């Protein structure tokens, strides 16, 4: 059975890798991200406006040799669905059996996968949502690259939620980030999409650095990397570990101040968002915080920090969601806000409530994104104004979207109404409670806003010809299943069930949502929804302030990150590069030139000087020689005269000396 635990992520990982290779192998010339359905590239109003996006891409060509390739690409969807089905079966098996698989990755440090109550719930949720999304995407007939990346993405999440130590967790965590990069940049022809992918990866990796730090500190503090051993770490280390984990989790979960990357992540296809915003990626941060809740509680400050970060994100990003005019952006901001409740749960030790909220939200949000994707493809727009009446045109998507949006609004008796209150029941500090409660009201408002727009009578944008996703069993079955979960998961709130839920997760029993609280929050959600309906009827647009730092622009977080971090780093890099070229390399070449010049000096004054002296001596000697030769005439009378002069001089000298 332990081997089966490796199969759980191994199967989707290997099949995903094979699909990616199959995507590359058959043809030399391919057309990358061209999609049969050409979901138009769009994004936050502002940066994507005026861009042709996917419409400008070459159509899926049937070039020579494309036939075989076409067959393989066509098989990718069914293969992926099959893999997802088997993965779900394996997930259920391991959830029941709770196996543990140990290995050694680094010397003397045990690594491994383990399934406890929390992991059991997570693997089933991840596998189920992945199956729903992949089945829906198979109906859209996307290419092998898409399915390969999605399977790898799912595999990484499955390892993340079963990893028993920081090393494996970090590995899966970062691979998931890389896959999200590839999926967000899926339509890479548009440089702006590639930029969004860059931003998402770099931002989440900035958070990931915390996990590296935490791993080192865990090694120092506990002598192991085991997650279970973390609360036992000594004083300085426990704080450092907690700090690292919190930063990593906030980054991955797009909580404040990292939320902006999720806005840009909308560049990916809707099916990607359906997975990325629900059971994977953003859920990973919340999962990790819920997992290490004992450590957070042990440090004291970390629990408080996390609770406030979650609550403030729920509130502020709720305001952002309400201010959006684009459906996917609204949903993205609402993801941050809803994940905020899970993060809050980790901070107030409401693990059972937090996980329940995570599961329910996964169903709701994947459903909403899949429906949004249908409209985006068929109507070619994301703009809330132009989506008027979209739901009436597509009854299946319309009804399921309606259920999802109503659940998101916290309307009774749907799932999020209950799970959110399960979290709030454990929130005791009054200020925190007020913020969290205000955030639930905002949730009611933004979800109702989306719901009203799509159901409001009106003429929606003309449908794009020949595009029919969301039809056939692959279209409606996943939506129906997700809608069922979104509607019915609220049973978890029934007191007996809730205790059983906590027992399943293996956490201490929590208070659970009380009847009075449920009545109040449900009633208020209905009131807020009614107010929004009334305001909308009158045609008044709430929150029309459109400043760069306002909620409509996600509080300018991306701009702040760019100005405060990215630009200074780039400037520093440029300055260092110039310093490297001019100063360091300049010094080296300067030294080389100095040596050359010294050599020159050695040649011109010194060497030639010495040489000159030598030459002068030589020349002098030569000249003396010439002079010395002069007397040597070979004539006897001259020699006699010279001898006579010499003798006379000698005589004079002797005479003088005497």
């Amino acid at each position, binding site marked *: 059975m332990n081997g089966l635990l490796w199969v759980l992520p191994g199967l989707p990982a290997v099949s995903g890798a094979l699909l990616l290779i199959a995507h590359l192998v058959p043809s030399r010339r391919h057309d990358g991200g061209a999609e049969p359905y050409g979901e138009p590239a769009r994004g936050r109003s502002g940066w994507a406006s005026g861009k042709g996006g996917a419409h400008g891409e070459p159509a899926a060509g049937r070039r020579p040799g494309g036939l075989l390739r076409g067959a393989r690409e066509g098989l990718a969807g069914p293969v992926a669905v099959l893999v997802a089905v088997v993965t779900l079966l394996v997930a259920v098996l391991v959830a029941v059996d709770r196996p543990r698989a140990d290995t050694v990755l680094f010397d003397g440090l045990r690594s491994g996968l383990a399934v406890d109550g929390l992991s059991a719930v997570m693997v089933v949720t991840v596998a189920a949502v992945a199956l729903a999304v992949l089945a829906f995407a198979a109906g859209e007939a996307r290419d092998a690259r898409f399915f390969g990346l999605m399977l790898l993405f799912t595999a990484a999440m499955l390892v993340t939620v079963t990893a028993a130590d920081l090393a494996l967790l*970090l*590995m899966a965590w970062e691979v998931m980030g890389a896959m999200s*990069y590839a999926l967000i940049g899926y339509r890479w022809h548009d*440089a702006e999409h*590639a930029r969004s992918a860059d931003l998402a990866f770099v931002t989440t990796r900035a958070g990931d650095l915390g996990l590296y730090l935490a791993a080192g500190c865990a090694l120092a503090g506990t*002598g192991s990397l085991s997650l279970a051993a973390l609360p036992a770490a000594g004083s300085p280390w426990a704080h450092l570990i907690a700090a690292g984990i919190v930063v990593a989790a906030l980054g991955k979960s797009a909580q404040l101040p990292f939320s902006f990357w999720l806005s840009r992540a909308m560049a990916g296809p809707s099916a990607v968002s359906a997975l990325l915003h629900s059971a994977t990626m953003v859920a990973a941060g919340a999962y990790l915080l819920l997992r290490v809740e004992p450590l957070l509680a042990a440090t004291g400050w970390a629990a408080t920090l996390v609770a406030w970060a979650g609550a403030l994100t729920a509130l502020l990003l709720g305001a952002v969601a309400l201010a959006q005019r684009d459906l996917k952006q609204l949903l993205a901001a609402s993801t941050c806000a809803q994940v905020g409740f899970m993060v809050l749960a980790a901070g107030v030790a409401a693990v059972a409530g937090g996980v329940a909220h995570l599961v329910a939200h996964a169903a709701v949000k994947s459903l909403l994104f899949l429906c949004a994707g249908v409209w985006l493809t068929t109507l070619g727009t994301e703009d809330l104004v132009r989506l008027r009446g979209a739901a009436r045109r597509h009854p299946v998507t319309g009804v399921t979207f309606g259920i999802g949006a109503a659940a998101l609004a916290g309307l009774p008796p749907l799932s999020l109404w209950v799970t959110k209150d399960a979290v709030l029941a454990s929130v005791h500090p009054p200020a925190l409670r007020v913020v969290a409660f205000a955030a639930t009201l905002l949730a009611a408002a933004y979800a109702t806003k989306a719901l009203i727009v799509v159901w409001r009578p009106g003429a929606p944008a003309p449908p794009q010809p020949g595009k029919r996703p969301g039809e056939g069993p692959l279209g409606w079955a996943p939506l129906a299943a997700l809608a069922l979960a979104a509607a019915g998961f609220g049973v978890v709130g029934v007191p007996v069930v809730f205790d059983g839920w906590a027992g399943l997760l293996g956490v201490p029993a929590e208070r659970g949502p009380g009847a009075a609280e449920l009545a109040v929050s449900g009633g208020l959600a209905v009131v807020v929804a009614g107010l929004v309906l009334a305001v909308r009827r009158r045609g008044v647009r709430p929150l029309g302030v459109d400043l760069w730092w306002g909620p409509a622009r996600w509080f300018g977080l991306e701009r702040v990150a760019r100005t405060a971090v990215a630009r200074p780093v780039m400037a520093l890099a440029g300055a260092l590069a110039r310093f490297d070229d001019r100063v360091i390399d300049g010094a080296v070449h300067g030294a080389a030139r100095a040596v050359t010049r010294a050599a020159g000096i050695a040649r011109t004054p010194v060497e030639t000087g010495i040489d000159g002296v030598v030459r002068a001596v030589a020349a002098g000697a030569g000249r003396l020689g010439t002079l010395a030769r002069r007397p040597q005439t070979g004539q006897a009378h001259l020699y006699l005269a010279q001898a006579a002069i010499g003798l006379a001089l000698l005589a004079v000298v002797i005479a003088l000396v005497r």
Partner: protein
Amino acid sequence: MLTIVIFLPLAAATLLALRGLGGRRAIWVWIAATAVDLILVAAMWLGYRGGIGHETRLRWIPSAGAGYHVGVDGMSLPLIAMTALLFLLCAVYSLRGTERPRSYAALFLFLQTVSIGVFAALDLLLFFVFFDLSIVGMYFVIVGWGHGDRARSALTFFLYTFLGSLVLLLGFIGLFLGAEPHTFDLTDLAANPPFSGSPGSAAPVLIAIFVGFAVKTPVVPLHTWLPPAHTDAPAAGSAVLAGVLLKMGTYGLARIALPTLPVAWQRYAWVIIAIGVVSLLYGALVALAQENLKRLIAYTSVNHMGYIVLALGAAGLVAGDVRARELAVTGAVTQMVGHGLVTGALFLLTGVFWDRARAYELNRFGGIAANAPILTALTAVAAFASLGLPGFSGFIAEFQILAGVIGAGAVVAGALAVLGILITAALFLRVLRKVFLGGPGELTGRVTEVRPAELAAVAPLLALSLIIGIAPRWLLDLIDPVAAALVALVSR
């Protein structure tokens, strides 16, 4: 056996010189020789049983206390295997065609002999001979087959690294004089460290040896020979320079400086850690600002080698946890192997750009993913491997280094070093976006898909990096004992 592994390539080179072979056939002789050498290395790996294996010790210059002493252990064996593989793949890569193939092949075979010789030598003089000859060989590769301002780059490379090796020689002589009895034998020096009576005189010797190896590694600020040498070298030359020659610097630190000067190493551990951190951050930042693909990759080498220096510095923190320090040293050796594979692959891939478009400027390309999906996939995989994505060798190395450094007590140094992996991520994503994604650029049309020889050369490197990244035990089991031994040696 080890001696055959070392000198087989040289014998093949002389064979090439003697007989008038055709160009294509010369390349095949080259491939055959390197393939046989790799098989021999694999056999050596299988036959290795711990300690110093495949040892040969002969008299060479007894009057100077130097001998022909070679052997392998868990640190040199992976590096020799990586070297043999990289040279084989460079030979395969050259099947796509090169000028004067006969002398090219002979030169690379010569380089292979001296490279394996450096990693196998257990005698300082022997080590030095191989070390210096590698500079000579690489000089001729750059000046003979390079492009751009190759004469100047090659001369800078030669003079700079040659000067470094002279400083190194001074250090070696210092070790020789400090040892009682005087010897150049590395195992004797490690067993009985010099200057045990007078730690004061160990410092200048350590400085000389450190500077000598720092030039080769290279460590900031002694790195400026590297970018021009890489930029103007042929692709296979760059791959060997980055993959093999740079390792000689860090290998020398771990093999020679750490065990023979333990007291001095401990005393200056913080200085070495600081140099490592500065080097890796500086290398990453300067790489981020580059506009030339090859220069950029060259600077990432400065970054990656900085991690190794950092880890080796942390090994000297005797107050720190022993297991954490061993983890750091294991990570350092893994990084040497992994960097050789991944950066080798990256430089071979840049050769595709020069071959097709005669340019390396990032902003003259764009949208290559449409022309050349396999080239794009290979580069993307190599880039993610280089930025330390889990699942590749770089993560296995860097995680161990960072966790080990922090675990050994250097929390601030570790926290700063972690920033390096974020900058590396940003710079490689920038490359991918500018060159491969988005709309087509000026030269994009010229970049065609990888040829079979190029694919056959690059894919095994990345596959091996992937295998190390997913299932590293077969490699780490070899490295762990030697890492423990090194930490024990430096803790004396």
